[in-house]
């Protein structure tokens, strides 16, 4: 049984210009111990999807307008707030993009870890503190006993992200949602943090939902990948399949815009810009920027269709050409 099953998730933000559909008809599953990468441009709905799973979308203006999110067979959207709190930080944990601002500046890092342990494990102060120190050791922070008494401003960005990971993993979650965990860090620190996440996943056996706009990170860390565009998943499958033989024109465009050693000097780009969420085009969301456009694209909203071996893509053009080509 899959750990997390998201069905037809739809999250809407009510703005002064009308409703903005940040996440629309999103479907995906994550199995136990698996890493699913979610890639896409800024504003494509990756983070809102994550916050929807945690039920942390700010309401108002945001609201989850439809769909189900099943975690271990229970729909988290149906849970009472106390039941949801028991899940948050315990079974599903989350780390955020900005380590510099994600820790409370007036509380020691040890306290911020111990707090989660105490909440979900119901242990005493001393025991929780010891657990916090142990977590700092696990995320490879030197001299964890002393560091636990430090305030966030006394730590570097990489260290703070390690602390965030320590908080997230302190209660041994089954699913870790990592929302661009390395975007704010420089490249060497990024590699360290990703290595750490990978090794901790193997050791603790948790599943990871890895949100990023960095295709390289996905290729390195994830087994499967979902590509999002303007609130929808446009393609999903095993990382090697999707990156090796992209079906959706957007995925092709993304991969085509990667710099390659020995490639052309001028990078290929996807023409146009991401449409505003309050002014999405009819039919396919990507049609205003698509290079493989046909007349039907403005009339039909493409659904994710099965291409075999776990591959899915939402593009009517690909459907026709692939079928005609016998793929």
């Amino acid at each position, binding site marked *: 049984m899959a750990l997390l099953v998201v069905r037809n998730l739809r999250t809407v933000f009510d703005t002064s210009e009308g409703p903005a559909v940040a996440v629309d008809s999103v479907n995906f599953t994550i199995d136990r111990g698996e890493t699913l990468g979610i890639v896409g441009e800024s504003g494509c709905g990756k983070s809102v999807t994550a916050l929807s799973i945690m039920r942390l979308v700010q309401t108002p203006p945001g609201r989850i307008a439809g769909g189900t999110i099943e975690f271990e067979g229970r729909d988290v959207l149906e849970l009472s707030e106390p039941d949801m709190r028991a899940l948050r*930080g315990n079974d599903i944990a989350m780390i955020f993009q900005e380590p510099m601002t994600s820790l*409370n*500046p007036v509380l020691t890092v040890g306290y911020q870890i111990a707090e989660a342990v105490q909440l979900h494990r119901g242990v005493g102060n001393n025991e929780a503190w010891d657990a916090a120190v142990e977590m700092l050791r696990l995320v490879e922070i030197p001299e964890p006993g002393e560091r636990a008494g430090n305030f966030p401003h006394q730590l570097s960005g990489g260290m703070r992200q390690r602390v965030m990971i320590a908080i997230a993993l302190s209660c041994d979650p089954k699913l870790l949602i990592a929302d661009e965990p390395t975007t704010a860090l420089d490249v060497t620190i990024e590699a360290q943090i990703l290595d750490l996440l990978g090794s901790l996943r193997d050791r603790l056996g948790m599943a990871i939902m890895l949100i990023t706009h960095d295709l390289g990170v996905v290729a390195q860390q994830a087994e499967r990948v979902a590509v999002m565009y303007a609130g929808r998943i446009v393609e999903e499958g095993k990382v090697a399949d999707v990156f090796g033989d992209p079906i959706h024109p957007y995925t092709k465009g993304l991969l085509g815009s990667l710099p390659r050693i020995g490639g052309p000097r001028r990078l290929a780009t996807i023409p146009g810009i991401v449409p505003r969420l309050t002014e999405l085009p009819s039919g396919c969301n990507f049609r205003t920027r698509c290079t493989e456009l046909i007349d039907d694209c403005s009339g039909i909203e493409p659904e994710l269709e099965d291409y075999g071996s776990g591959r899915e893509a939402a593009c009517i053009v690909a459907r026709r050409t692939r079928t005609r080509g016998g793929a």
Partner: protein
Amino acid sequence: MLRYLLTRIAGLVPLLIGVTFVSFLVINLAPGSPVELMTDLNPKAGPEVQQRLEKEYGLDKPLPVQYWIWVSKLARGDFGRSFQQDRRPVLDKIKEALPVTLALNVMSLAIVLCVAIPIGVYSATHQYSLGDRATTVFVFVGFAMPSFWFALLCILFFSVHLGWLPISGLRSFDHNALSDVGRVLDIAKHLILPVCISGFTSLAAMSRYMRSSMLEVIRQDYINTARAKGLDERTVTFRHALRNALLPIITLLGLSIPGLIGGSVIMESIFAIPGMGRLFFQSILARDYPLIMGVLVMSSMLTLIGNLAADLMYAVADPRLRKR
């Protein structure tokens, strides 16, 4: 930390010297003199009386000499004597007035904090709700109403119409005949109106400040982190948000120190409270140079010390400012 404290205290010395200089200069530049005030309307006092008085008060000497005499006495803790008829030491007059003003304002500030912080937190966590709008209207009514007018209305209603509270002053006529508990109750009864009214009128600033500070904080990433841990809203609000939101309030407290010491001329005049505001006002009317300068120097000194204390409070509350 100790070094920081010592440098800060050392830095106060030139400031204080500047304060004495400016106080002295401003008063001597102002038109009118205490002697004129005493003799002009007295047909019996001729120029020779004026000269005698000037000599007596030391006003016949050149200004730099006057300043030097005053400052050198001040350095020894001698604030001089009042020019007014009682000729009492300035320090005694300040000693009588300061505790009254301080007590009044500290009490009113305490009430403001006790009411404004919860209002601010509530307004921020329930932004645009009915309660938020209602409290906003409430605090702005207090802000917009002229305090002297509101004070008179309250006196009319509570003291004259209902007869629950005394009209003015700090003590009843029979104060000395009362028991100890009775005396305390008597003063408390006299303080209710001035404390509540000055509190009500300054509620808006503090509560709106608290609201915006809290709104700023609950948008921060670490609040989301706290929620993602599974903490309930109460814990998120009070343990994670409130402490951060209170930091800017310390600045506001530091800024309110001069008001705490200086007192309000309007409130003290309306309620006939013998505080610093009234003392200062009367001393200016009487051109009582030593008293004016004494009040200025004393208020400045206490304000500087208060600001230093506020800075230290900052360091205690915000670990980022603590020296490692």
